[in-house]
């Protein structure tokens, strides 16, 4: 009899164990990580944004070596649709080994900046640069125009943009990039286990929210609390889309450095393809305030754009140089961060967290839940 009672009690406490661990304050801080997916807004600077013909043409071109001068690469060579639109290589292999890791191309619609150093202020500009970049597709405007004219895509291209022979090669380049951008805008990560949790919290359905595993909940507590991750990784995409120093060395060799945001801004401010240029299709130039008012500062040196954490479990290795092989390595990096290596004039945010093994596992469980199907 006595034994039976104890068993019954044990079962009861076990069932009651699944609960929401978050404080009310943390619940409130969790809600801005959604809703997901965000509502789609077409890009006013791209007249073929959200156009089904442009999306189809962009998808075909993305996977076709016709966009490289000698047929050596397609965009998909570095942004493989089978590998979450990146590759497993630490640093992208173009005509030479590039300095940076290929980012996954999902959830890019409507951002303020593109590229690790933010050298582009629109998705079509970010799609244009690799076509003419010497170390990547290496086309000239002229060779691109010839390649498109002679390709099997010419009918679709002309159906949208008119007779190619009357178009200046630069216009052909921009139009091509705008179809790529229309396609890339459609790439988004799916809803995750985390999103079900977040939505349940919003509905105050705590029973449903309690299905979210406890290690992930404890990881989220760290993310919001002691880890201070939310200072930079915030909003529905888990990124503020600004530039920070996360303590990753930016030395490329004994002499070379990756200038990060500093170089990105130099590139942007001398680029012909910004939202303030004639190539924007938006008569109101809505996004142009960004390039007009962005400030340069010495502390831009060696800072990089905060990456989104959605789908992050699928895109190892990590950081701008792909130097950290898995999520655990990233968490240990933050845990043991060498504050001596942070910029002297940088923001005083990151400091050694000295996480326990349990905490490392919890943070990893949380990050993985941002990729897990519900």
């Amino acid at each position, binding site marked *: 009899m006595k034994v039976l009672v104890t068993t019954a009690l044990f079962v009861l406490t076990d069932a009651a164990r699944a609960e929401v661990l978050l404080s009310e304050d943390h619940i409130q*801080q969790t809600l801005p990580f959604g809703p997901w997916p965000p509502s789609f807004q077409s890009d006013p600077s791209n007249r073929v944004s959200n156009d089904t013909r442009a999306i189809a043409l962009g998808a075909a071109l993305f996977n076709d070596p016709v966009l490289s001068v000698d047929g050596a690469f397609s965009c998909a060579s570095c942004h493989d649709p089978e590998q979450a639109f990146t590759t497993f290589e630490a640093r992208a292999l173009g005509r030479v080994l590039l300095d940076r890791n290929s980012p996954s191309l999902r959830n890019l619609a409507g951002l303020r900046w593109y590229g690790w150093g933010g050298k582009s202020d629109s998705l079509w500009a970010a799609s244009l640069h690799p076509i003419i970049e010497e170390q990547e597709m290496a086309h000239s405007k002229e060779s691109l125009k010839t390649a498109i004219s002679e390709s099997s895509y010419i009918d679709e291209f002309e159906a949208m943009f008119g007779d190619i022979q009357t178009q200046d090669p630069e216009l052909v380049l921009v139009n091509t990039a705008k179809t790529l951008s229309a396609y890339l805008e459609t790439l988004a990560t799916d809803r995750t286990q985390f999103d079900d949790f977040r939505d349940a919290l919003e509905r105050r359905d705590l029973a449903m929210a309690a299905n979210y595993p406890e290690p992930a909940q404890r990881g989220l507590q760290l993310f919001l609390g002691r880890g201070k991750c939310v200072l930079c990784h*915030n909003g529905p995409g888990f990124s*503020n*889309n600004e*530039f920070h120093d996360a303590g990753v060395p930016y030395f490329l060799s004994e002499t070379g450095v990756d200038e990060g945001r500093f170089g990105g801004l130099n590139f942007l401010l001398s680029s012909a393809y910004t939202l303030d240029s004639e190539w924007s299709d938006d008569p109101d130039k809505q996004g142009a305030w960004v390039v007009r*008012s962005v*400030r340069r500062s010495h*502390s831009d040196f060696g800072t990089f754009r905060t990456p989104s954490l959605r789908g992050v479990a699928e895109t190892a290795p990590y950081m701008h140089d792909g130097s950290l092989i898995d999520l655990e390595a990233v968490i240990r990096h933050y845990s043991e961060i060498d504050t001596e290596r942070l910029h002297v004039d940088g*923001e*005083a945010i990151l400091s050694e967290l000295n996480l326990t093994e349990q905490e490392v596992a919890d943070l990893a469980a949380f990050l993985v839940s941002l990729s897990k199907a519900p």
Partner: protein
Amino acid sequence: MGSETQNAPEAHVAVDEIPLAQPFSILITVCDNTDVGEMRVDALMPAHQHDLNYTPKVTALGDGLFRVDNMLFHMPGLWELQVDVGFGDRSVSYTSNVMLK
């Protein structure tokens, strides 16, 4: 808004809810009979030693009313709004703390 200057003309700032890491606008009213001249607006996070990544755009709407666009707070936490206003040949600085969740 507060000012260390003695007898500073009153200034008020009107803000709706501030979105995190997204641009927003504010209205600033300066109550003074004399001519209100130029206004400069900035903000910084005292805890992290950084200011704004974008220069706010100030538009004088007349009668001491100013509209400030392209404000963007890229991190949650305490921000200190700083406003400098020219009155004839003197300039007065105001500050106001804004807590962003």
